[in-house]
């Protein structure tokens, strides 16, 4: 302990010296705008807030590098955590041996999955373990966590953890995963874990009345949020049994519920502070390492910080759902849409995460912003042994928009209609009815079409 404190003190002195040099000449922030003494005589000069291009209150701190992210926060005696990743897509853990890691000088605590009071979480289905104790379902699954006095020691300790696996068959393709005889990611449950159908009107009749019917198939890829700040958290389990967590999480209320559930703590003993997040884009809407950090802190009696590597950002956090999308559209000769069907397959990866929301949103939005009396939209989400898909900016909308707008241009080209014209001919207006039967208000779709065309300098040619 004395040695650790020496190391920590030396590091802190170095950090503080660097800080003093770096910030010696920073200008101070400007004072608050002087209050108006009396009401301005001219109405145009009145104080307004809404509609103003007001400077952000945090802009100066951001611009000068003074915003405190998790990486900038250090508590006395704080340890650093690393997580051992499975590295295989599917397998059963036969044995975990953490003794060599625990014996390393500087290692203060090791945690494995079975130590968690409730080892599962998830916003819809609690199908994801904090640390796998039995079955690995994708290569980024964590199997053990280490806290040590430095990141380097923690990383070296993770390498000394030995895990024996019994390999299990993996399914990587969502179409294959839908087959009855496919390996089950969460046996005995089917790999199809969520579905939704939206139907309005009579598509068969609509197609029968159409002059032309077009079909298209579109696919989209798996992408990462790539925030500048990776997932990071500090957990501090104090002697009174109260847990404080600083975390890069966009939903602190849900995260506290998940912490309370996994750790079996009353909520009034958990304080969760959402620090300024260096980019979320949907990737930080749920807990990840926080319960493991909390247990490490409890065991070590010290605060514990965990910061994901860039590699972990890709392999161990959620990604955007890859989609397979099949469209059929019946139109009149002059390009009015009479019927449309959309069938969506969402590759959910190993765990549900925010698939239910993504599936719902994409299924509702799939027909596009068009007045179509006869629509049918069906979506399924499928487990595969890959990185779990979750929330990402757009929740399925970028995928279906790629499909319905590519499809729209193909229809326009086949009919010899200008792409702007066919959209104006079918687009939603005030009072239009959505595929779920909702009467829409404040609809300015056609304004956006006309104004973008004007800004761009779009001239019709067909």
């Amino acid at each position, binding site marked *: 302990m004395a040695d650790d404190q020496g190391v920590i003190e030396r590091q802190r002195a170095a950090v503080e010296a660097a800080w003093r040099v770096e910030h010696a000449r920073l200008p101070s922030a400007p004072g*608050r705008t002087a*209050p108006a003494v009396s*009401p301005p005589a001219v109405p145009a000069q009145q*104080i*307004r*807030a809404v509609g*103003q291009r*007001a400077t*952000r*209150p945090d802009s100066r701190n951001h611009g000068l590098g003074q915003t405190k992210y998790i990486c900038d926060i250090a508590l006395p005696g704080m340890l650093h955590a690393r997580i051992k990743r499975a590295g*295989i*897509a599917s397998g059963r853990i036969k044995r975990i041996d953490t003794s060599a890691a625990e014996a390393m000088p500087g290692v203060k605590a090791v945690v494995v999955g079975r130590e968690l009071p409730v080892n599962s979480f998830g916003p819809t289905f609690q199908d994801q373990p904090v640390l796998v104790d039995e079955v690995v379902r994708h*290569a980024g699954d964590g199997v053990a966590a280490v806290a040590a006095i430095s990141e380097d020691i923690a990383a070296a300790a993770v390498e000394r953890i030995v895990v024996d696996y019994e390999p299990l068959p993996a399914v990587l393709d969502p179409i294959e995963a839908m087959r009855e005889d496919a390996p089950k990611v969460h046996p005995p449950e089917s790999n199809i874990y969520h579905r*939704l159908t*939206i139907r*309005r009107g009579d598509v068969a009749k609509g197609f029968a009345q159409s002059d032309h019917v077009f079909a*298209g198939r579109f696919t989209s*890829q798996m992408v*990462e949020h*790539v925030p500048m700040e990776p997932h990071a958290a500090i957990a501090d389990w104090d002697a009174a049994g109260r847990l404080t967590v600083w975390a890069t999480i*966009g939903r*602190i*209320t849900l995260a*506290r519920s998940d912490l309370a559930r996994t750790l079996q703590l009353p*909520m009034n003993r958990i304080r969760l*502070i959402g620090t300024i*997040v260096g980019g979320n*884009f949907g990737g930080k809407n749920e807990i990840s390492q926080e319960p493991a950090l909390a247990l490490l802190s409890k065991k070590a009696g010290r605060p514990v910080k965990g910061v994901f590597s*860039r590699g972990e950002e*890709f*392999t161990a956090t959620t*990604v955007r759902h890859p989609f397979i999308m099949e469209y059929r559209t019946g139109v009149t000769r002059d390009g009015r849409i009479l019927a449309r069907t959309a069938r969506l397959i969402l590759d959910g990866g190993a765990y549900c995460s925010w698939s239910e*929301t993504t599936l*719902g949103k994409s299924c509702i*939005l799939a027909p*596009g*912003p068009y007045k179509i009396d006869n629509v049918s939209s069906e979506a399924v989400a499928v487990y595969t042994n890959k*990185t779990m898909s979750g929330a990402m*900016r*757009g929740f399925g*909308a*970028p995928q279906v*928009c*790629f499909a319905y707008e*590519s499809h729209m241009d193909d229809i326009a080209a086949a009919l010899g209609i200008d*792409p702007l014209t066919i*959209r104006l001919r079918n687009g939603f207006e005030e009072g239009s009815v959505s*595929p*779920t039967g*909702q009467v829409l208000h*404040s609809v*300015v*779709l056609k*304004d*956006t079409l006309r*104004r*973008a*065309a004007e*800004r*761009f300098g779009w001239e019709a040619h067909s």
Partner: protein
Amino acid sequence: MKHRGRGIACMWYPIGFTVSANPSAAVVKMNEDGTAVVLTGTVETGQGALAVLGQIAAEALGLAPDDVHLVSADTDATPMDTGAIASRTTYVTGNAIRLAAENARAVLFEVAAQVLGVAASQLEARDRRIQVKGFPQCGIPIGDVCKRAQSALGQPPIGSASWNPPTVALDPENGQGKPFGTYVYATQIAEVEVDDETGEVEVLRIAAAHDCGTPINPMLVEGQVEGGISMGLGFALQEEILFDRDGRQINPNLTNYIMPTALDMPEIDVDIVPNYDPTGPFGAKGVGEPSLVPTAPAILNAIHDAVGVRITSLPATSEKVLAAIKAKRGEGTKRLPA
């Protein structure tokens, strides 16, 4: 040879969660000098949410944006919020803060009404004063009202409120219902240049017309649209996580997972389309996610316009575009051996 093309794409996008309740609560406290503190459970994730929420509180209280400070994201101190997700912050959290500010303002009106000798309903909060509607000379600085409320009347001005968008659950049979409070609309038009020898696509410019209801802070709306376009551009042309046959990622790093940098960005012309949604705070809806939704199809439609190939699987990498161009050439006249 390089070919230019243009492509259009429009979209609709809901504001808030799918079907389930997604409430926000907020507290607004007035300080003795007439400035205000807002407590909110949402999180600043870089988008400028706290700036926008402060402007909403300031508008309701007749203050300037600088007069409001926000305390956010601490489960010990701030009230429940569904979080920085689903483009809901301006609309849902904003409505909760507007209502909480109005509740704090009601205390100020009550106190000022006694001093001014008018009914509270005749008062307005404007220019850091509580004043009689239509008679701005008849009013009191808001700081004096706050001091009086606290020190003379023992009634510190504070307001709390919560808000949840009214929705109707989807029918499990046919999916009919009212899943969202409101929607936004947008169109983006891209101009690209495609090199038919390499398949490389360069996005030259994008005109982006976006509806967000009232733009609470137009500068931040523009920032969201520009950021969304960079994300949409990566989705359209570059980004893709690849797996080996054993299910391990091949490119989990920023060397081999290619995403757009400043040098890839096109010229962007953002147009905020005038609109007012009566269900939003001061007419506002949201803009965070929709900004990237139409970018990829606008670019893909522009590629089709430029070289006549339809890429149906994202991303449209140079290799994929070149292969499609070659396949298309192959369909036409073939050179026969002499």
